């Protein structure tokens, strides 16, 4: 190891220690990658998500360093760039639960050191806007920590600038007691987009929205963990997507109720056109003893083409009593009467289709924006 010339003994030790720690972390993530299986079609969490074509290709991208740009477009005084030396953040990422992507997370950890951490200790007056963009491959990490009683709004955008752009993001979101957070993720323009999100609700209100558009392949894993009960705590997960061409959207969610007496709600909606494919696999997990849980989960799809495919697999795992849970899924073509109504007012067919489809998705986005973040 080379030390700079005029460095004190202590400084040299500290540096050596940091480097050793980093090396250890790298080894651990390497191990993790080696031990966990890469996604394949026999893996229940990947069955319909084209792992043979996309997850494998994504894994290969880690052979080259990730390269992209992270920017705070608005109101980001509290934003700190994530650095490879930040051991706490790295540890947090290491502990993230995945839904079938442990191996891929191991790869992500080896390139750890891009993205932003937001430590929000005051109410945001306008939404904080973060953007990650790349024309090759980028692997950023986002950390959002909202302090007790603080109200925040965040928009995270992922933009692919070239035909082969790929992005793999991890997102850790901590909402403290009494905090209120509305956070969205919008991705567009990628050949491959993958995100693993972990929301930890420690007694606040959080609304999360994802919107993916114009990505050839999108894999989303969103796990919300609820650690506190009471009237003031609530976790809402929304998604609204329009798929065209041969796009594939593969979404996996978990609502994990560690304690009883809390509410969670999920509404994922897709409009699926052409020969596109939408996969939704959701799970509500109510831990032993988490009585009086109130959890909902709904996946709704509008099919605009006979060649479009939907795989909808909502699920429940309830290990407590006096629980109110429901899950449902529905997929149907566009309502003929609605379309006729618009046409009968002179609105041309293409535009009418567009309006009805947008209206269908607006249900999810409206609920996201209507979600209380006040009082």
């Amino acid at each position: 190891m080379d030390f700079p010339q005029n460095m004190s003994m202590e400084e040299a030790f500290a540096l050596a220690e940091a480097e050793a720690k980093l090396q250890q972390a790298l080894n651990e993530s390497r191990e993790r990658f080696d031990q966990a299986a890469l996604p394949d079609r026999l893996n229940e969490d990947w069955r319909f998500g084209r792992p043979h074509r996309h997850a494998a290709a994504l894994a290969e991208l880690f052979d080259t360093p990730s390269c992209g740009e992270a920017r705070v477009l608005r109101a980001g005084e509290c934003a700190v760039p994530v650095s490879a030396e930040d051991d706490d953040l790295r540890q947090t990422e290491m502990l993230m639960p995945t839904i079938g992507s442990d191996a891929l997370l191991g790869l992500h950890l080896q390139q750890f050191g891009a993205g932003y951490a937001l430590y929000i200790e005051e109410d945001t007056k306008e939404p904080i806007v973060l953007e990650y963009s790349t024309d090759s491959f980028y692997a950023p990490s986002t950390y959002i920590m909202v302090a007790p009683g603080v109200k925040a709004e965040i928009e995270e955008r992922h933009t692919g600038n070239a035909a082969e752009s790929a992005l793999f993001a991890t997102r850790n979101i901590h909402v403290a007691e009494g905090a209120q957070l509305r956070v969205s993720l919008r991705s567009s323009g990628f050949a491959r987009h993958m995100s693993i999100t972990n929301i930890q609700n420690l007694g606040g209100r959080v609304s999360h929205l994802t919107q993916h558009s114009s990505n050839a392949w999108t894999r989303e894993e969103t796990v919300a963990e609820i650690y506190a009960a009471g009237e003031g705590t609530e976790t809402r997960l929304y998604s609204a997507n329009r798929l065209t061409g041969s796009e594939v959207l593969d979404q996996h969610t978990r609502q994990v109720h560690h304690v009883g007496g809390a509410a969670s709600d999920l509404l994922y909606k897709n409009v699926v056109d052409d020969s596109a494919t939408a996969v939704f696999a959701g799970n509500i997990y109510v831990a032993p003893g988490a009585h009086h849980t109130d959890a909902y989960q709904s996946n709704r799809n509008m099919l605009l083409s006979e060649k479009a495919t939907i795989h909808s697999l909502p699920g429940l795992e309830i290990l407590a009593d006096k629980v109110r849970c429901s899950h449902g899924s529905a997929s149907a073509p566009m309502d003929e009467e609605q379309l006729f109504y618009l046409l009968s007012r002179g609105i041309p067919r293409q535009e009418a289709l567009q309006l009805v489809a947008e209206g269908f998705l607006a249900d999810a986005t409206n609920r996201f924006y209507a979600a209380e973040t006040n009082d």
Partner: protein
Amino acid sequence: MSLIIRNLHARVKDGAEILNGINLEIPKGEVHAIMGPNGSGKSTLSKVLCGHPAYEITAGSVEMDGQDLLSMSVDERSRAGLFLAFQYPVEVPGVSNANFLRAALEARLPKGEEINVVDFYKQLRGRMKELGMDTKFTARAVNEGFSGGEKKRNDVLQMMMLEPTYAILDETDSGLDVDALRVVSDGVNAMRAPFRSFMVITHYKRLLDYIRPDVVHVLYKGKIVRTGGFELVDYIEAHGFDFVRNEEE
């Protein structure tokens, strides 16, 4: 210039015939009332005229101001001046009333032109006031969660905004309270003009007392079986439709 329906036959796709040879001419400037028992085909006639995909036309023709109506698409018919206020207006979740109307109006402009938003809202609010509608309805999704009467009013609002030449009102009076009935009728009457005509479908004299028809038709089993003046309305109000049923047998 008029709307001319000749020997129109239509059925539900792969089903029984519902319209059995309708002949009807509505010249511009006139109001024609259509009455008839439940299930006689009044709504079917109005939807067939608009081009509803559930129905198949097996014979006949319809001419609107010299154009072959049946060869036009649903949206073309509307832009050419046809309008139907539905018996059961449809809910369109997530599409606001204002955006919906804007799209409908913009579709009538030459390609690329947009409507003036300020004028649009001014006109919209004015019309809503005429109809006694709260302006908060502009932001609400089309008919979603509207009461029965609110839906009917909303359809009439659309008619006022789109200013059609041939307007069909399918039981617009059903579901309206006494005051709303007057307000809506006043709105329709204000639109009566030499260049516009109305086909008013109703079961009740009350509406036709407000909107006085020039001609009254009775539709029965998919056919116009009687045509006359207001005396026909009085007769039906007093005696019902037994006279047409008896004649048919």
